[in-house]
């Protein structure tokens, strides 16, 4: 089925943002009629590349060819006109409209809004395997059906090449199988797919070819029939990376954090986001939480930090029950927190570095006394962090948003490790951070652990998890479903546990 011609070819794509090169000479060629997978870690530059291909951003350098012709996309409308359609990870459907109305919305000119349009939708429903009636209200449909409507939408607009952005993230395993069957059928009808994912098993199951990108560069293209998960993971993570290995065990028997029966109802009703989570972290121990993203890691961290309302269960910190304590009193009790999204949760972008040093510490010495801030102390301590954590900045008066991601993260880690915390909750501490900063952050975490810090580490980087953790727990669907010994487990085995394939 796979033709020799390239449906889409990206050559030498480079895209820079202030302080970051998101794509650095990326090449990607998708042959007509194939299912091509694009793999890479979070922050590797997948989404930037897709935004460029879909006309949402213009590349600084490089060319885009569609069916052998060089093109320039100024907007998604140009990409659609060239036959490229994108199904976003988060659906963009109006719940209160019918299937037909959703498809026609914004595409009224193609076949009108009458019989011809309807006939085309019925025809395409069969193609995408949508069983729901064209008159059904979208709010009554499930996730799998909604996804098919999204695919239908792009086909209706004339797409021959369909970009699927993390399409399986929202599906349960049977639905994934059904989606793959549909993709295979459509491939038989001549459609081309670009499949973005970091789930290695799925990529190998569906793709004809796999392109891996890492830190904004193309690593290479692999054949799913011959490549192993291990090899793919190595391509994604890179073997030249500094090893996060921790050597000697520093685990003590002093409990710092004990979580019992933690549960969190979903705000809109439905399945609980967390259910029956029990865990213990000792002084000098790193407990790693492994899991496919979106399985409750964010909720677990935020519940332990006291940022979620209506949580069930107990959180005990150093023998004190803090289940009902505020986020601030948990911080005051010695919890440091490195959130997963530093720009949203850890930093005030428009404020200076030293003002950011105050955030989270505005109630305690040495930064504050009796409700008054000691800005001189904040400045002095910011200078210490900049020095000790090698934050590259011309000074402590610059705005936090002016720093590169890695330097921002070093500042955050430095701040959260100040004031001698007893527990550090670190979510993806090295995500989107350059190699040098990553090694620095790992070194600091190891040093703090040796000094008796308890660490709860959530990460999507399996090597980081295995390398830093003393104990590993696997989270799936808001429950802890197993444990692993980081001394003996391989990323491959861990990956299998995360997807729930193993018992």
């Amino acid at each position, binding site marked *: 089925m796979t033709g020799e011609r390239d449906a889409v070819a990206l050559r030498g794509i480079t895209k820079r943002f202030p302080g970051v090169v998101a794509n650095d000479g990326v090449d990607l060629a998708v042959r007509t009629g194939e299912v091509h997978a694009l793999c890479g870690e979070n922050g590797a530059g997948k989404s930037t590349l897709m935004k460029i291909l879909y006309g949402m951003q213009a590349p600084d350098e490089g060319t885009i060819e569609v069916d052998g012709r060089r093109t320039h996309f100024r907007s998604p409308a140009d990409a659609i006109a060239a036959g490229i359609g994108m199904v976003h990870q988060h659906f963009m459907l109006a719940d209160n409209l019918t299937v037909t109305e959703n498809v026609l919305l914004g595409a009224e000119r193609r076949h009108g809004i009458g019989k011809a349009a309807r006939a085309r939708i019925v025809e395409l429903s069969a193609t995408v395997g949508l069983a729901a009636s064209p008159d059904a209200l979208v709010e009554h449909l499930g996730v799998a059906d909604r996804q098919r409507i999204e695919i239908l939408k792009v086909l209706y607009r004339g797409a021959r090449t369909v970009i699927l952005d993390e399409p399986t993230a929202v599906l349960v395993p049977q639905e994934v199988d059904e989606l793959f069957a549909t993709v295979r059928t459509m491939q038989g009808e001549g459609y081309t797919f670009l499949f973005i994912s970091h789930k290695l098993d799925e990529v190998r199951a569906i793709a004809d070819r796999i392109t891996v990108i890492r830190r904004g560069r193309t690593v290479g293209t692999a054949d799913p029939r011959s490549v192993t998960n291990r090899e793919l993971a190595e391509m994604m993570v890179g073997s030249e990376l500094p090893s996060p290995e921790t050597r000697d065990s520093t685990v003590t028997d002093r409990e710092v954090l004990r979580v019992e029966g933690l549960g969190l109802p979903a705000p809109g009703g439905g399945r609980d986001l967390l259910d029956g989570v029990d865990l213990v972290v000792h002084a000098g121990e790193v407990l790693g939480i492994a899991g496919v993203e979106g399985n409750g890691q964010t909720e677990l961290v935020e519940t332990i930090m006291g940022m979620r309302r209506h949580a069930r269960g107990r959180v005990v910190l150093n023998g004190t029950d803090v289940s009902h304590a505020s*986020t601030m009193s948990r911080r*005051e009790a010695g919890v440091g927190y490195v959130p997963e999204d530093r720009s949203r949760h*850890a930093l005030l972008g428009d404020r200076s570095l030293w003002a950011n040093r105050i*955030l989270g510490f*505005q109630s305690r010495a040495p930064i504050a006394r009796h409700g008054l801030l000691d800005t001189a102390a904040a400045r002095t301590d910011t200078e210490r962090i900049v020095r000790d954590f090698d934050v590259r*900045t011309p000074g402590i008066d*610059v705005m936090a948003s002016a720093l590169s991601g890695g330097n921002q993260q070093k500042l955050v880690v430095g701040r959260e490790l100040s004031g001698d915390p007893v527990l550090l909750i670190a979510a993806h501490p090295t995500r989107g951070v350059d190699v040098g900063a990553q090694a620095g952050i790992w070194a600091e975490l190891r040093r703090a652990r040796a000094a008796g810090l308890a660490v709860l580490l959530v990460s999507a980087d399996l090597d980081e998890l295995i390398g830093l953790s003393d104990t590993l727990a696997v989270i799936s669907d808001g429950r802890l479903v197993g444990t692993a010994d980081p001394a003996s487990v391989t990323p491959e085995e861990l990956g299998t546990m995360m997807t729930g394939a193993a018992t």
Partner: protein
Amino acid sequence: MSRLRGAVVAPVLAIAVAALLCAVALVISGASPWTALTTILSQLGSGTVAVDTVNSAAVYYLAALAVAIGFQMRLFNIGVEGQFRVAACVAAIVGGTVALPPVLHTLLIIVVALLTGAAWVAIPALLKAYRGVSEVISTIMLNAIATGLIAYLIRAETFGELRGNNITTPPIPESGWFPGIEVGNGSIFGMVFVAAALGVGYWFLLGRTRFGFELRASGESATAAAAGGVNARRTIVVALLLSGAVAGLVGLPELLGRDHAYTLASPQGYGFTGIAIALLGRNHPVGIALGALLWAFLDKSAVALDVVGIPREIVLIMQGLIVLSVVVAYEVVRRVERRAEQRRVAAAAPVQRPAEVSS
């Protein structure tokens, strides 16, 4: 230092642009911009214009401070208007009813005004914190209710009395007045100094206290503030109560320094002017003070211009243009500065510190 330069350059540029546009408007309407300029500049020396300007600026300053406290947290307290009017009315009734020695009497009136302003804003504050009701909507609606409440309170049958064609609250005896300072023919309200002191307090609150830090942090990023241990509900409620309390003082300079009673004809609209001035001064205590002075000065100019036959509406145009161009100028300067800073950091970052040679 570059930040200070930006803070000065933007408004100066904006005022120049606004003045230029006004000159164009004047030329089109057939008046001489030069005459207009000399008229409004020379008015300062005449009569009590300078004193009146300061007095009126104090009123605007209080209103703008009230708005700015909310703005720090991205809370849009449009209800300063209602809060100040209800507070002035209730304070006037209490002040005109009780008999107390001087100072104590004045203090009581001030405290009543503070509490009434806070109480009036407590309704939208609690609705916002616990039910997520937009404070914009609820404070606007309370403005309308305030008008009705005041009309009821100062009826002759309730607490008011009929004087000629006007309905008024019982006059406050002299023990409750806030004495002013005689300057030339005029008198500077004593409340002017209270307003200035509040400005200092506002600066201290924002820059030096935990609450001020939490307030600003919540305004810049609610998510980062929450992760940093800021209690969002408490901050919303306290911010709005503070805003309302300061709003409660807006009517007092005139009540305690000149009118000594709240009447049906008492001035309105200060709350809305306060919004414009808070924008103009970029929520900064000194910026707001300059904005309030400029605004009051332009207000007085309307009278002087009228005398020489230039349409007084030119002042409204000028005020509107200034606000518009200042807002635009601030945003432009902010973006330019941010880009410059990013370049500066990017230029500094790649420089690896050379490893020190150990001896």
